């Protein structure tokens, strides 16, 4: 899959370099079609939801098609997020893109700069569509210069997962999860277990080297990932990874691994999840959307707890979590009738009943708060009380540029580069300072190139 990610990026950069005609910040002036345009009878929607989530997508589409609006949406699975973006690029080259596409969080700047999108704000303003009830943390992630670019669809955040049985075993309070860096490290030391031969049989904490987790740690530290308000007030020109906050995160992580109480699964999200499931690590951090999978897989072997995402000891008031996931874009290249139909579908998908069902089917956050009052959502919370931590976490996250998350044209590359940076530190190949300097220089050069190609 990595190879396709690389291909997607190559195509994206090539297309970005060729399509340099788009004005700064994409085409923010693109207009929604007039209100009286009759919606098309049929539109296509490309999505990247497989398995259970794919079934949930089908449920939404079937519901919409049967709702008597005279519009048929055809949902087509197009591989994972990277594959879909690669396919979209190819299709755009020959005008074969669909009316509606689902693109992942970090494709935001690329989609905007492609100039191929009608900002969702244009439809919202036209219809005076009320977004007051939308979860602020979720909707703010998809804004540029305070204008909504796309409609959030599947949203998740990151939390701490912990093994309550292991907590009890070493005398920690299973009802109280550690929150600050020092608390996590202290708990991890206690939870680490060795056998007679000195081999570690259980580590206290074992996060994957995953760039998204680093972005989340920056946000809970209240720090900016990139300049110009994380690239939201204006295009970012450089990354801010040499801040004290970033170095604090790296030093904490490194100390844990060197001290033998943090497990390092490498750049391997599934490996980290498996280690937690198997009881090889007692705590780890991951997406809220993994909760149901954990509960199913662990199948009662131990009690699973959830806690707030780790943050510095000073618990900065400006710190909070970022939303991840994907959102829906209405494409400019399709006829006005199809855009109209796509907007009708988006509105339907955002209705509280649909959102509640979506949450129950997938484990993503509902985008509209009213969904929590609906049956399926309530049942979900009863069944998985651990999810309440996730809801509290984003509710309590202050809304500012650092918790909005960064938008960079080269976000996928930046994420991969932070992973290499963290790995170099953890494996002792470089000091924190040296690793950070090298990574910052690399990515700043790429940002400059991207900004030149997309003025």
């Amino acid at each position, binding site marked *: 899959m990595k190879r*396709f990610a690389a*291909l997607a990026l*190559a*195509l994206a950069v090539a297309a970005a370099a060729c399509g340099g005609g788009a004005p700064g910040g994409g085409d923010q002036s693109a207009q929604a079609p007039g209100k009286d345009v009759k919606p098309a009878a049929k539109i*296509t929607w490309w999505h*990247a*939801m*497989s*398995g*259970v*989530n*794919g079934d949930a997508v089908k449920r939404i589409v079937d519901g919409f098609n049967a709702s008597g609006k005279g519009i048929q949406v055809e949902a*087509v*699975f*197009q*591989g*994972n*997020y990277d*594959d879909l973006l*690669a*396919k979209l690029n*190819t*299709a755009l*080259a*020959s005008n*074969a893109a669909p009316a509606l596409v689902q693109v992942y969080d970090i494709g935001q700047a690329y989609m905007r700069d492609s100039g191929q999108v009608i900002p969702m704000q244009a439809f919202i303003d036209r219809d005076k569509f009320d977004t007051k009830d939308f979860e602020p943390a979720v909707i703010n992630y998809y804004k540029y210069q305070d204008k909504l670019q796309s409609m959030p669809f599947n949203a*998740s955040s990151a939390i701490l997962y912990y093994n309550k049985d292991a907590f009890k075993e070493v005398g920690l309070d299973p009802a109280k999860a550690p929150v600050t860096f020092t608390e996590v490290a202290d708990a991890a030391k206690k939870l680490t277990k060795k056998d007679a031969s000195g081999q570690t049989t259980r580590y206290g904490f074992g996060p994957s080297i995953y760039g998204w987790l680093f972005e989340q740690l920056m946000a809970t530290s209240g720090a900016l990932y990139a300049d110009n308000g994380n690239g939201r007030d204006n295009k970012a020109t450089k990354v801010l990874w040499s801040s004290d906050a970033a170095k604090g995160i790296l030093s904490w992580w490194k100390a844990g691994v060197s001290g033998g109480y943090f497990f390092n699964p490498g750049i391997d999200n*599934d490996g980290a*999840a*498996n*280690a937690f*499931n*198997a*009881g*090889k690590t007692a705590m780890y951090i991951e*997406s809220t*959307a*993994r909760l*149901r*999978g*954990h509960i*199913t*897989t*662990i*199948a009662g*072997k131990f009690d699973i707890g959830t806690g707030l995402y780790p943050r510095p000891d000073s618990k900065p008031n400006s710190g909070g979590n970022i939303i991840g996931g994907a959102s829906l874009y209405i494409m400019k290249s399709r006829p006005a009738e199809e855009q109209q139909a796509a907007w009708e579908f988006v509105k339907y998908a955002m209705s509280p009943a649909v959102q509640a069902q979506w949450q129950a089917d997938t*484990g993503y956050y509902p985008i509209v708060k009213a969904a929590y009052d609906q049956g399926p959502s309530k049942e979900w919370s009863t069944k998985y009380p651990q999810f309440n931590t996730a809801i509290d976490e984003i509710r309590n996250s202050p809304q500012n540029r650092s918790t909005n998350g960064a938008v960079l044209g080269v976000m996928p590359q930046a994420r991969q580069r932070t992973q290499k940076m963290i790995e170099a530190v953890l494996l002792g190949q470089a000091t924190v300072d040296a690793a950070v300097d090298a990574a910052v220089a690399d990515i700043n050069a790429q940002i400059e190139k991207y900004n030149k190609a997309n003025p």
Partner: protein
Amino acid sequence: MRRRFGIRTLATYGLLAAGSIVVAFPLLLAVSYSLMTESQIATFPPPVVPVGATLDNFASVLATIPIGRYLLNSFVVSTAVVVGQLVTASLAAYAFSFLVFRGRTLLFFLFLSTLMIPWEATIIPNYITIRAIGWLDTYQGLAVPFMATAFGTFLLRQAFLQIPRELWDSARIDGASSLRFFLSMVVPLSRPALGTVAIYGFLSTYNQYFWPLLITNETLMRTTQVGIAQLRFEETLRWGLVMAGVVMVATPTLALLVLGQRQLIRGLTAGAVKG
């Protein structure tokens, strides 16, 4: 003398057995995982042999994707590509090895140089062509772009060059046409090479992912590898399910390889005795 031979045989078989275990291990592990429940897979250290095998994963695969249809599509497309490649590559190789014409070497090197073009660079033009002909969501669209192969032509040319020139001369003296010589001498003598090209072409088409994903939108026209991708969930990977899908997709190709290998070896020995 006999004893030494025995020890040597034993050692050879021992080495071969060890080697085959190493080679077959990932495959066997896939089979084993496909029979385990998720919580079994998640124990540490990871188990190798399932305790109380379950077929639930296979049932889930059947319920999640139309795997039968995907297999059929992959077979139709791969077979068409193999037939196409054998015809075009063997004829081209014949021209490059037996016929003498101006610019032959230049043309051959030009041919070979296409091997240096990364496939990523050809994807967009190919897509635009296929779309312009209206071949999206069709078997032609999936198969035709791969029916000519520079690698296969190169391989067959090398094999054809091994055929003694005297055969060609005597066939010509006996009045055989180029086509006759090609069909009754070159093709039978090159069966192992043709078999290699066929198997290579089949497997690489069968394992294609991005091209089928790119040019198909209809579920009914998709192929096995796209199906496997549908089994990978973005947030939680269910290894048992994915492995069950992999086993179902790999079994037919393995069967084909076992059958084809026999054919290959027979072709090889037949050539050796006659040649």
